[in-house]
């Protein structure tokens, strides 16, 4: 199978990226040391090619009502132009189809950004739901848009340097909101636990903008560091921390699911009928080694499983997200089976690190 390429493929290769098959996309995993790239983002800033993610625009008079039924979080919270909301999109049985960000642009236009690996199935599901509930809705995806994330404490300043006119437009942009600038869409969002922007722009303009950012000293960051940054920030990764077989209330997503308002949404009845028995927690390894996905966690209340694990460059020890029986408490000591050994880990509240610093006691 031929791997799909983003508009920045040649730029990555020119910058010495090590390319890997990432869900069918030919993507940079690093440009040298993944750990250096991680620190670069926590301490200064870096840029990521996330053009494999998909933008989906929904337009129509009934778009808000449609999204209130489609998404587990409640878009009735969105009133300011450009404001974003993180939400899961559930199956009728409560399993997670995808997690996404929805932006309110106008009463007849909401913009959604979905994961790369799930984009086609997401759009098929959205269209099938719209056929029933909002037949006049226009659902158009934009594979022709590239997306560049610039993240880190100095990210916004670097974007302002690289993009004349952007400062006036985005300096007062509150976190988790976006604004249009010509053909660009600039969102103060990210997947690292740092400040910064995610910028959508036409594919043909992406290599030029990437080059300007590089000229301003912004270092390219691969998907390897993206994963350790999001893990430290306690952000779920679809396909690892949750998927179609997982109850979102057992995946740390309760804060995004509105079960209080009287509105109905796909999956609500199933969630109400199946109270969670497990929960997602953080783990910090106390022994030497590295926590990894699918390792079994032994607790005083039964077993659980690591959903994402790696080495935390900020804490300089291994951390993980794990799904364990809900009786497990912060501070508990648990055992993790790694090969032929049982290693001790401490249950911690996540995020582990944000805004350049560790936020848990290792």
């Amino acid at each position: 199978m031929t791997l799909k390429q983003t508009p920045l493929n040649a730029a990555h290769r020119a910058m010495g990226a090590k390319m890997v098959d990432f869900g069918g996309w030919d993507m940079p995993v690093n440009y040298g040391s993944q750990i250096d790239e991680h620190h670069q983002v926590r301490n200064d800033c870096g840029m990521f090619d996330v053009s494999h993610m998909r933008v989906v625009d929904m337009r129509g008079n009934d778009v808000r009502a449609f999204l209130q039924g489609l998404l587990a979080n409640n878009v009735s919270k969105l009133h300011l132009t450009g404001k974003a909301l993180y939400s899961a999109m559930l199956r009728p049985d409560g399993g997670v189809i995808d997690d996404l960000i929805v932006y309110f642009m106008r009463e007849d236009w909401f913009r959604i950004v979905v994961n790369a690996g799930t984009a086609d199935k997401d759009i098929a599901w959205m269209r099938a739901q719209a056929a029933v509930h909002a037949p006049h809705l226009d659902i158009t995806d934009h594979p022709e848009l590239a997306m560049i994330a610039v993240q880190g404490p100095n990210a916004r300043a670097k974007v302002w340097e690289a993009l004349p006119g952007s400062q006036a437009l985005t300096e007062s942009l509150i976190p988790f909101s976006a604004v249009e600038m010509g053909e660009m869409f600039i969102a103060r969002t990210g997947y690292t636990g740092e400040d910064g922007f995610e910028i959508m722009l036409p594919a043909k303009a992406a290599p030029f903008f990437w080059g300007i950012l590089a000229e301003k000293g912004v270092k390219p960051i691969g998907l390897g560091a993206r994963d350790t940054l999001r893990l430290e920030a306690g952000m779920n990764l679809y396909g690892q921390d949750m998927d179609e077989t997982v109850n979102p209330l057992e995946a740390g997503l309760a804060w995004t699911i509105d079960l209080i308002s009287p509105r109905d949404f796909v999956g609500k009845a199933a969630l109400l009928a199946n109270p969670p028995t497990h929960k997602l927690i953080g783990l910090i390894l106390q022994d030497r080694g590295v926590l990894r996905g699918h390792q079994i966690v032994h607790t005083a209340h039964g077993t659980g499983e690591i959903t994402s694990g790696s080495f935390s460059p900020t804490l300089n020890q291994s951390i993980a997200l794990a799904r364990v029986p809900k009786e497990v408490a912060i501070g508990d000591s648990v055992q993790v089976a790694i090969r032929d050994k049982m290693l001790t880990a401490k249950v911690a509240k996540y995020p582990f690190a944000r805004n350049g610093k560790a936020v848990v006691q290792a």
Partner: protein
Amino acid sequence: MSIPTELKYTPSHEWIRVEADGSITIGITQHAQELLGDMVYVEAPAVGRSLNAGEECAVVESVKAAADVYAPVSGTVTANNSELDSSPEAINSAPYDAWIFKMQPADASAVASLLDAAAYQAVVDSEAH
């Protein structure tokens, strides 16, 4: 990337240095460390452990993945490199200096049949395709 000609190799990317006393020193190659990326943990076999050729006996873990290291020949572990406990990244910066463990081979002739640099180069080249 040059492959040192004075060392022996395995298809599973270990390098082997034959010492004057007949013992061997084992590490992982430049190619292996490049594939794995930033190293964060090394688990070496205990001294005195008896190993069969091809046996999993050490683990190197990068941020990205864990990889097994195999005994290149049968024999007994005589030393392991505790410096890697605190600086596993030495495998990235100097893979042919950052040895993982040493063995006394059960049969010296087994060492002679390991890959030479040219044969190992062919292994690396074949993986690139």
